[in-house]
């Protein structure tokens, strides 16, 4: 018995990591939803990255073949200006994924910074930060994003700022909660006794221990950020016209949906499949990392 526990202790780190990777891979493959999500998402990212190579046409090139139903030459049909819908949607993946990932990256860094600072220092710093976070928490992220666009104005960069700020509260709350539970651990006291600075304690000892729920939250947040961008673009508050984004293509299609169903169906299908596959991944990660702090809705 003693021998067994001893041998567990001397397992080399590299082997442990390899074993963990294998466990992850097994889990992902066994969980069919996660596998589907991973495949679809990889395809979308590759398609978006290599859009000019993958797309059959230039997304902005016009043709006399206007509002043409799906056919061999235009698999998803064409819009009112004769532009190929499939090509526009593939290019749209670029914008959607870029906005989704960049806004969550910004919100993650800002939110975690605020949350860790609030939880670690406590006192008036905590009060000021959390008063604001609680205020924002009372509203759904999408509404906050709309409010912020109302202030900043429309356009891609403003939309990115608005969505990033709108998602800060989710990360700040999780990070702060984790810090409060970790702060009193003995290894923090040990680090402090050894003379580690506040920054070092937060960076080296607290941050790594808050990772699991943050990863899960970030995954779900990417899907909500994509939905938020599509919603803002759809309402005319997002990127400039002529930029092919899923929300905007759908908004532009509205005048023609009575005679061209494909213009109303496919852009939304792209949004839904993307969001669904990210949510599948988030769900699998939540099971795998055993995270209970994160819910699967915004």
């Amino acid at each position: 018995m003693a021998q067994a526990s001893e041998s567990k202790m001397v397992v080399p780190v590299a082997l442990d990591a390899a074993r963990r990777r294998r466990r992850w891979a097994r889990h992902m493959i066994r969980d069919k939803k996660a596998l589907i999500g991973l495949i679809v998402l990889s395809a979308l990212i590759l398609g978006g990255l290599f859009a000019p190579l993958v797309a059959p046409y230039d997304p902005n090139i016009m043709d006399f073949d206007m509002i043409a139903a799906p056919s061999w030459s235009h698999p998803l049909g064409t819009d009112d200006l004769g532009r190929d819908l499939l090509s526009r949607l593939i290019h749209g993946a670029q914008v959607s994924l870029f906005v989704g990932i960049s806004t969550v990256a910004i919100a993650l860094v800002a939110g975690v910074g605020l949350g860790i600072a609030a939880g670690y220092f406590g006192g008036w710093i905590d009060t000021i930060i959390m008063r604001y976070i609680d205020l924002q928490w009372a509203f759904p992220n999408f509404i906050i994003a709309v409010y912020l666009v109302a202030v900043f104005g429309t356009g891609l960069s403003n939309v990115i700022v608005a969505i990033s700020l709108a998602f800060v509260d989710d990360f700040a709350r999780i990070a702060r909660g984790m810090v409060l539970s970790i702060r009193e651990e003995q290894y923090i006291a040990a680090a402090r006794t050894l003379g580690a600075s506040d920054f070092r304690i937060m960076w080296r000892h607290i941050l790594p221990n808050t990772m699991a729920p943050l990863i899960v939250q970030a995954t779900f947040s990417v899907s909500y950020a994509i939905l938020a961008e599509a919603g803002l673009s759809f309402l005319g508050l997002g990127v400039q016209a002529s930029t092919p984004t899923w929300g905007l293509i759908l908004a532009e299609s509205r005048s023609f949906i009575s005679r061209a169903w494909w213009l109303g169906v496919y852009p939304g299908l792209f949004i839904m499949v993307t969001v669904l596959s990210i949510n599948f991944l988030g769900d699998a990660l939540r099971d795998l990392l055993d995270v209970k702090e994160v819910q699967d809705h915004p």
Partner: protein
Amino acid sequence: MGKFLLRRTFGAIVVMWAVATLVFFMLRAVPGDPMLAMVFDTGDPAAAEEMRRDFGLDQPVYIQYVKYFVQVTRGNLGTSIYGSRVPVSRIVAEAFPRTMSLALLSFVLALIIAVPAGLISALKKHSAIDHGVTIVAFIGLSMPDFWLAILLIIAFAAQLHWLPAVGYVPLAQGLWPWFSHLILPTIAIGTPFAAIIARMIRSSMLEVLKADFMRVSRSKGLLEKRLLVVHAFPNALIPVVTVMGIALALLMAGTVVVENVFAIKGLGRVLIQGILNRDYPVVQGAILVVSAIFIFSNLLVDALYTVIDPRIRYD
């Protein structure tokens, strides 16, 4: 409990004040002051000066702030600066019943779908029905509500001609005309909301079914049906009600978007049109009213929480 509610109400008023203040200062702090830009767009310096005076923009900010607050507390939200100068409070008062009709109908629809779906899915855990509900709920969560709205218009308005595609008819003009215009938007808003609630009910019901008191009740020989109705379901409702505040907020967010698809001039459409027209008094007014609805519904949920769970004591 009375004290608790009093404190929560006071808290809600403070939040309302914070929102109003943030909105006031943010709209004025933006570089290039949109309000001034709006005024100077007229091109006529004399007219611009007059408009500045009309809107009190020639006064120092703190005086504007005090005046704005006095007006808001009296229910005066200023006048629209886009097109005809309609009082914002009138625009908002016309929009309010439309948004509330939509929100309430969607809420009812969502509960009708979600409660049975969530319960069956929890009771028949890992059955085919449970997997079906889970997959449908996942799709409902991932489907943009504005897209669902468009699909419904394509199917039921453009192809089948069963229901009107856009617009709103006041209840005063008859129940059916009012209702028929709201059916499609209600489905569009209610479906994603139902997905969220169903998943909440499923997970909290599963927690309750595992609880000790359930085992005790079962070993006492209580009938399974009575066990579920009297013991499990009310306890499963507690966490559901807690998150209902968040869920109601999502419902309102859905309303804001879907109103724009169906051209229903509710608060969401007023807000979005205000932003697009750079009509700042309207934006400010719409934000205040939408925020008030959120804050009030959260307060309501808190009050409901104390009623539903007698174990909770507040002092």
